[in-house]
């Protein structure tokens, strides 16, 4: 026994096998095991350079004092203050942070829900093969093609309290003027109203998915005497859940990071209603140059988005992906 083991060990450690076996491994097996890595290497390098390292640097900054006026040597002493400041109500920033979080969540939940239901209804309405329907689809999608800045400027003009078209129309019918973005209390309803014009984007996605549902399902349902509502509940909606899931996740992630469409509209009156969390972070970083605090705030947002997405994924048993692919 003892002897056998010894021989085996000497064999394994023998000079010939030590030289040969690993050499064969590196050349062939290594290429087979890791040759494909070359395809993902640029992406991994990109993630490292433009995501992972900046992420860690941002985390590092968030725990330090930063001097924005010394670009070469900005990092000061270690501190928890950036995080504590967010949640302290006296001498802290909790009032502003909580307000930003509240309006951002309200925006994300309400606009995503309204837009998903509205655009779904619109897609159902357009999901017919009639003459000229394609042209109507283009028309409904058109407002989505307005450049964000031009759109913001346009809405600012149209909803102007005194000179905007909507108020001119209201006055023509003898109705009172509406304040839209001018007064804080009418900002959120205005956002919802303007959101209608963005429904075309999701509508196109729903339509593409609805087209993929096999016709036989509806024919069978017709033979069984199922009415339109039953067909919607039992065929169309279940068959589009994978798109529901995709749009839900991407819309919520995007809505929580809302910035461009409203940033140009902010003025003294409506700031409390439009100071979404990313707008707050942007101003903290690039207007007030309080970079450390901006980094801490952006990590707060990251944690929120990460846990929210995990929650949605955890509860995604209702999603149907078709036959396993």
């Amino acid at each position, binding site marked *: 026994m003892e002897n056998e083991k010894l021989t085996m060990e000497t064999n394994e450690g023998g000079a010939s096998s030590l030289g040969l076996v690993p050499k064969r491994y590196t050349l062939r097996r290594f290429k087979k095991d890791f040759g494909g890595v070359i395809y993902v290497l640029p992406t991994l390098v990109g993630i490292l350079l433009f995501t992972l390292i*900046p992420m860690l640097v941002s985390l590092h900054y968030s725990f330090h004092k930063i001097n924005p006026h010394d670009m070469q040597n900005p990092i000061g002493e270690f501190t928890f203050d950036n995080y504590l400041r967010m949640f302290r109500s006296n001498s802290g920033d909790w009032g502003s942070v909580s307000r930003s979080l509240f309006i951002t969540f309200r925006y994300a939940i309400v606009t995503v829900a309204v837009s998903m239901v509205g655009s779904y209804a619109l897609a159902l309405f357009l999901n017919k093969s009639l003459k000229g329907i394609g042209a109507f689809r283009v028309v409904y999608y058109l407002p989505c093609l307005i450049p964000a800045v031009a759109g913001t400027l346009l809405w600012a003009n149209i909803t102007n309290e005194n000179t905007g078209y909507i108020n001119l129309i209201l006055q023509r019918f003898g109705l009172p003027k509406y304040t839209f973005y001018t007064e804080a209390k009418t900002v959120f309803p205005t956002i919802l109203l303007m959101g209608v014009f963005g429904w075309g984007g999701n509508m196109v996605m729903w339509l593409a998915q609805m087209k*993929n549902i096999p016709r036989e399902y509806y024919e069978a349902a017709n033979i069984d005497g199922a009415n339109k509502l039953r067909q919607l509940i039992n065929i169309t909606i279940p068959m589009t859940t994978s798109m529901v899931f995709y749009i839900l996740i991407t819309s919520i992630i995007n809505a929580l990071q809302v910035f461009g469409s409203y940033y140009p509209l902010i003025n003294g009156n409506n700031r409390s209603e439009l100071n979404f969390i990313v707008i707050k972070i942007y101003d903290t970083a690039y207007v007030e140059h309080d970079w450390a605090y901006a980094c801490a705030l952006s990590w707060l947002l990251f944690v929120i988005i990460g846990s929210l997405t995990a929650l949605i994924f955890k509860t995604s048993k209702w999603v149907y992906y078709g036959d396993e692919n």
Partner: protein
Amino acid sequence: MAMKASVKKRISKTAYYACLVVFSVIFLFPIYCMVLQSIVPDSYFTGIPELFPKLSELQLKTYTTVFNDVRYLYYLKNTLIVCFSNILGVCVGSSFCAYGLAKVPFKGKNIVFGVILATVLLPGVVTSIPLYIVYSKIGWNSSLLPLTVPIWFGGGAMNIFLCRQFIKGIPDSLSEAAILDGASSFKIYYSIVLPLIRPILVYLAITTFLGQWNDFQGPMMYVKDTQSKWTLSLALYKNFSEPTYSGVLPNVNMAIGVLMMIPGTILFAFFQQELMEGVTMTGLKG
């Protein structure tokens, strides 16, 4: 009875088209306002405007103003540089990475795929501040480099995901013959896979174009203070946010907006098929 049914059908069809038209009026309202505001005279913005201005007052002067202003040519050039380097970067980068993920076996692939997808969750603001500082240290700020270079590394997680879905659908039998002939995996990528994934590449190119064409957050972060590097969207934002400084009236801005809508509208009308096809990929499981 039969006639009654056909009459009923016709009525419901007419009602349907009537609804379509009513909705069209709603969705065309912003477009109507935008075009109208681009052709009203300057005096329109001093008093209370008319809802339906007199036809004789309308003019196309705003458009000639834009065309005669050489600055907008520079902005257009910058915008196109950003758009096209992004389109190329996205198409090459994401298809290359997606091919590796979909067809070439290697160890740890699922981990790599997971890491790539996880980057979707990261809000852009988290990385933007360190990147801004690094860019200013290496002299990239106030140039177009931050807007054109990073995209070449992979082309974005969502794009990689879409490409991977599409490439997975290509039957292996197509590449098996090539493998028997001794073709390398790279040869299979560019001679077999790349031509076959044209629809998804068109989709990616169009969505990338529209995204970059309209984006002003990126340019605002990096080239805001260097007017010669402005893109059209940023110029529009500057005109709008600093009206007294820029001296540009809303009708000229609206004319720029109308002009900026043209490429997207044409692309959408012509490539509706490819766009739809690309969209259906997004709902598939990984």
